[in-house]
């Protein structure tokens, strides 16, 4: 278990070995680590899909919030997302369910209510579905008598941006290493070197 602050401090410590007068703060490093983690998670999806043919994410990357209230509005029942959502394929960013033993509700495209009205697919096999709009999740209108529970469990994929930097995160060790490397690349001096255009073309010496 590790915190975002710990990873940020590691990045800062390594940067200090190369330069002592850097104005990069610990907070900068924490934010950079969070952004790097999000990017790596999305990249991993495509790599896993290409190499293994697998679709989905490791469970260690999901954070869980219990007893999140379901609210009512004129647009239907909804819930607030407890953190910033990641943009990942196929609705993997958010899972919601009644409890950990029950089946997760089906993630749907945002226009589901209008698109599927009156079609047989609207029944969703007797299951409940939801779709995300901004920072809220709305439950789908299905023809059955399904109603959402009062409280739900929300699982989100690596929602590090809104998590307290001092909260423990179950990020696998290999992923921690990759995050640090990505951050070092971002702040590293080599990336800030200005290209010398007078020497980049050996064939143009005249």
């Amino acid at each position, binding site marked *: 278990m590790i915190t975002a602050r710990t990873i940020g401090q590691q990045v800062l410590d390594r940067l200090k070995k190369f330069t002592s007068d850097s104005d990069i703060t610990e907070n900068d490093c924490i934010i950079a680590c969070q952004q790097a983690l999000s990017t790596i998670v999305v990249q991993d999806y495509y790599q896993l899909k290409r190499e*293994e*043919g*697998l*679709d*989905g*994410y490791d469970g260690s990357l999901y954070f869980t919030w219990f007893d999140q209230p379901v609210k009512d509005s004129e647009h239907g029942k909804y819930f607030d997302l407890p953190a910033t959502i990641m943009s990942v394929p*196929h*609705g*993997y960013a958010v*899972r919601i369910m009644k409890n950990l033993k029950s089946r*997760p509700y*089906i*993630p*749907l*495209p945002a226009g*589901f209510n209008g698109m*599927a009205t009156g079609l*047989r*697919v609207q*029944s*969703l*096999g*007797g*299951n409940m*579905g939801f779709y995300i709009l901004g920072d809220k999740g709305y439950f789908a209108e*299905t*023809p*059955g008598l*399904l109603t959402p529970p009062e409280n739900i469990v929300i699982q989100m994929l690596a929602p590090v941006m809104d998590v307290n930097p001092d909260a423990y995160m179950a990020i696998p060790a290999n992923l921690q290493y990759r995050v640090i490397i990505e951050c070092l690349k971002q702040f590293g001096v080599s990336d800030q070197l200005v290209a010398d255009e007078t020497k980049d073309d050996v064939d143009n010496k005249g």
Partner: protein
Amino acid sequence: MRKLDEVIREIMISMGMEATSNKYLRYYQLGIQALDITKTETAGADYYKKHKKIAVNENGVVPFPHDYEDYLYVGICKGGTMVALTYSPDMCPPMHDDCGELQRVTRDGSTWYYGDSDIYGRPTESLSGAFGYFKPYYEGRYFVIEHSGIEFDSIELVYKSQLYEQDGDYMVFPYDVEVIRTYILARLHEDNVMGPVSQKQYSQHRFISEKRKARMKNNPIKPQDILNALRR
């Protein structure tokens, strides 16, 4: 029978994906399409045949059941025996009265029924007419029923139904599961514009093959069929 939802989830898991992804919607839609195909092409002769006793309204019409698709037999139960009503294409549509209610159809020349009838409702002992007449009106989703003298308050309707539903889901006959799986694969390969043509042809071939096998399993040969073939 199994639920389509179960079949779809098994397919998604077997393909190495999470059944909690929003691809479920697409797979479920493909599953419904595959079910339509199994219903028309592989189902057994009586898989979607339903029998219902339905009351005749005061205005002489019988509404279609909610899952009605086409009728196979319309009759009444008389003395423990099913007696068919006769399809009458020349029956007028029912008129509306001043209150907008449908009026019972009565025709001149309708005669009493005096004897037995065959399975098609034709009289076998008397030439005086049928027990009663019916005509389906699809626009209003009802049958118009006319009796020939003896009143009856309900009909026996044997009809072809839509897909079976349970708990908001559609039901799959066991031999059709593989047809649904191969149909979904064939469609996925077909829609993949970058995929090789051989893969598309192979998956299409598998779908057709599974469809043929399911049709044979759902309609097994009975001893009577063999006898009929030998006597030909």
